[in-house]
C-alpha cells in the first residue's frame, strides 16, 4: 500500500493536513468544512492552506452549528460527495450527536444499502493541554457504542495520515478522533506519497511476554515512557496501539493476552462504561482461561476533567502506568 518513498518530517497536524491535501487533489468529490476551517485553517491549523490551494468551494468556513455541520455532510455524502467535516473540540461534538447517532450511523441500514454515507467527522480530543471546560473530553466510548459508526484514533503522524486517507476512502462513516495533546509534540518521518492504513487493525508496537498494555491516542506516548521504567524493573511489556476503537481488533488483543496472561488498559476517558470495560469484557470472553491476574483499567476518574490546576491529578502519567503494570505483573 505504500506509495513513493520520499519522506518528510511531520507533526500529527501536518500529517493530517497532508492527507486531506492529497485526497482533495485526487478526488473532486472531497470537500472540507467546519467552524473556522476555511480562511483560518482551523483553530489547530489542521486545514491550513487548503482553502488557498483547493478553493473556497471545497474548503470553507461554516456557520457555527455542529448539528448543521454533520447534518449537511450527511446530505452531501448521500448525493455523491465525500465530506470531511471538522468539529472544533471533543466537547462540541454533542450538539451534533443526534445527527451522528440517528443518521450518520444509520443511512446505510435504513435504506438497505441504497444510500451510503461516506463521510468523515474529525475532531481534536483529549486532555493535557490546560484547557477550558469541554475542551479535554475523550468521548470515544460513546461513539463506539453506536452501531453503524467506525471510530478511529491515531497515535503517530504516520498512522494519522494513513488512517485519514483510508477514512476518506471508506464508504462507511468514520469518526476520526485526533489526540490534540500530541498534535505537535511528536515529529516523525512520514512518506510524502499516498498510502493507507487499514481501519480495524491494532498494531503491536513492542513485543513482550509479561503483560499486555493496550492504549491509543496520546496515551501511547505515556505508555512508552512507562515501558522504559518497566524495562528497568525487568518487566517485559507487550504494547498494543488499538488505532481503531470500533470495529475493535479482538484478534490482536486476545492473541497477546493468551501469551502474557495479563492486561493493563490505559486511556484518558472516565473509567466506567468505557473502552477499558469493553476490552476487559473481550479478554474475558475470548481468553478467560489464560488470565493470570485481574485485567486492570488505568483510566480517568468518573469525573469531569478538571481545569488546569487539577488536571495533573486526572491525567494518566507514566509512573502511574508503571505502578499498575507492576501491580498487575506481581499479582
Amino acid at each position, binding site marked *: 500500500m505504500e506509495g513513493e518513498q520520499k519522506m518528510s518530517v511531520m507533526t500529527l497536524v501536518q500529517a493530517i493536513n497532508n492527507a486531506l491535501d492529497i485526497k482533495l487533489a485526487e478526488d473532486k468529490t472531497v470537500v472540507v468544512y467546519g467552524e473556522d476551517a476555511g480562511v483560518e485553517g482551523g483553530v489547530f491549523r489542521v486545514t491550513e492552506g487548503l482553502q488557498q490551494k483547493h478553493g473556497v468551494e471545497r474548503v470553507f468556513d461554516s456557520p457555527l452549528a455542529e448539528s448543521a455541520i454533520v447534518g449537511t455532510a*450527511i446530505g452531501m455524502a448521500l448525493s455523491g460527495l465525500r465530506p470531511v467535516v471538522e468539529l472544533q473540540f471533543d466537547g462540541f461534538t454533542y450538539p451534533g450527536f443526534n445527527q451522528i447517532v*440517528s443518521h450518520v450511523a444509520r443511512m446505510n441500514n435504513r435504506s438497505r444499502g441504497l444510500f451510503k454515507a461516506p463521510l468523515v467527522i474529525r475532531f481534536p480530543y483529549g486532555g493535557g493541554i490546560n484547557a477550558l471546560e469541554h475542551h479535554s473530553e475523550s468521548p470515544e466510548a460513546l461513539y463506539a457504542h453506536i452501531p453503524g459508526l467506525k471510530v478511529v484514533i491515531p497515535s503517530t503522524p504516520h498512522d494519522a495520515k494513513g488512517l485519514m486517507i483510508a477514512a476518506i476512502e471508506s464508504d462507511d462513516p468514520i469518526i476520526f478522533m485526533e489526540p490534540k495533546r500530541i498534535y505537535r509534540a511528536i515529529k516523525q518521518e512520514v512518506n510524502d506519497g499516498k498510502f493507507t492504513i487499514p481501519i480495524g487493525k491494532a498494531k503491536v508496537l513492542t513485543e513482550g511476554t509479561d503483560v499486555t498494555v493496550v492504549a491509543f491516542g496520546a496515551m501511547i506516548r505515556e505508555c512508552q515512557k512507562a515501558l522504559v521504567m518497566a524495562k528497568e524493573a525487568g518487566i517485559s511489556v507487550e504494547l498494543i496501539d488499538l488505532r481503531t476503537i470500533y470495529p*475493535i481488533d479482538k484478534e490482536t488483543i486476545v492473541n497477546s493476552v493468551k501469551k502474557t496472561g495479563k492486561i493493563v488498559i490505559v486511556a484518558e476517558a472516565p473509567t466506567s462504561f468505557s473502552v477499558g470495560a469493553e476490552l476487559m469484557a473481550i479478554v474475558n470472553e475470548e481468553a478467560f482461561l489464560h488470565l493470570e491476574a485481574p485485567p486492570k483499567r488505568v483510566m480517568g476518574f468518573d469525573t469531569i476533567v478538571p481545569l488546569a490546576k487539577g488536571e495533573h491529578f486526572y491525567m494518566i502519567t507514566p509512573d502511574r502506568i508503571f505502578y499498575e503494570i507492576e501491580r498487575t505483573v506481581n499479582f
Partner: protein
Amino acid sequence: MIFNDFDPKEDKTFRLIDNEGVVLNQALMPDLDDETVIKAYKAMLFARVADEMAVSFQRQGRMYTYPPNMGQEAISVAAGAIMRTDDWLVPVFRELGAWLAKGVTLKEIFLYYMGNEEGSNYKNAHHMLPWSIPIASQLLHAVGIGYTIKYLKKDEVAFAYVGDGGTSEGDFSEALNFAGVWQVPVVFTIQNNQYAISVPVRSQTKSINLAIKAYGFGIPGIKVDGNDFFAMYVAYKEAFDYARAGNGPVLIEALTYRKGAHTTSDDPTKYRNKTEEEEWAKADPLIRMKKYMDQKGIWKENEEKLIEAYKLEVDKQFEEAENFTPYQLDDVFQHMYVEMPDDLKRQKTEYEQFLTWKENRK
C-alpha cells in the same frame, strides 16, 4: 413574483380558489390543461384511498402504526406535478402524493409499515431519501444535497418537508440558516396541519405565522393555502424555478389540516373539537378541487368506479407486501456496514448456534 406580494409579515395567505371551488384570482391561476388538472385530482384521490385503506389494514392488525395524510393531499400532489425526475425529495412522513409521484410504490410503503426496512429500498424512486424520523433533522440533509447540486453544477432542486411542530426544533433553524448562507437550491415546505400530535400550533410558537421565520435567515417565505391545489402549484412553480435558477432557498408554509389521527395509535378527540374539524372539512382539498372541476365541467368520470379500481390496486400492492420474502437473520446484520465486521459475523454465528440448540431441544 408571488413571494414578494404575499409578505408573511402582513400575514397574508396566498389562495386561488375558495372552498366552493370558485376562482378568487384568475390572473394568478396557473395555465393548466384539463388533463393536468384531472391527473392531479386523481393523484389526490388515489392518495386518499390508499390512506384510508392503510388505516383499515392497520386496524385489522396486518400493519403497524401508520400516519395518514388525509386532508393534506394537495400539497404534495402539487409538488409531484412540479418536480423533475432528478429533483431530490427529502420526506418527512405526510406527503404521500410526492412519494408516489417520485415512484415509490405502495407496496414499499406498506412493507415498511409492516416492519421491514426493505420498504425503504426504493427500487424506482430516483433521488428520494428514506424517511428520517427525528423531527426536522432531515432538513439538514436537504441542505447538504443542495450543496452537492450547486457544487456539481447540476440542474436539480432538493425539496424537503417538515411539520408545524418541526419548526421548533433547532435543526429547522440551522437548516434554513445554512441554506441561506450557502444559497443552495432547496425548497422547504412546512405542512402546517395545525397540530403536532396533540399540541396546537399556537402553543408551538408566538410568531404570527410560520412563513415569517424565513426572515431570520434572509430567504423568501410565503404562506399558502395548502388545501388549494392551484395555489400550491403556483407557489411550487415559482419556488422550484427560483431555486433552480440559482437564487437560493425558499420557504413555503402550507396551511392545512390533518383530517385523521396523528397516527393509528392516536385519538384526536382528546385534544380537538368537532366544530374545528367540521370547519376544516369544508376546506378539504379534494372537495374543493372537485367543485372547481364540476363548475368547469371537466370531470366526467364515474368516481365510484375509479375508487373501486384504486382499491383493487391498493389491495394488490398490499398483498404483494404481505407476500414479501420473510425477514432473515441476515437482514439484521447485512447493511450495518458496507462490509460486515468480524464482530457482527461472530454475533450472528453465536445466534445461529443458539437457534440450533433451540431446534434440537424441541
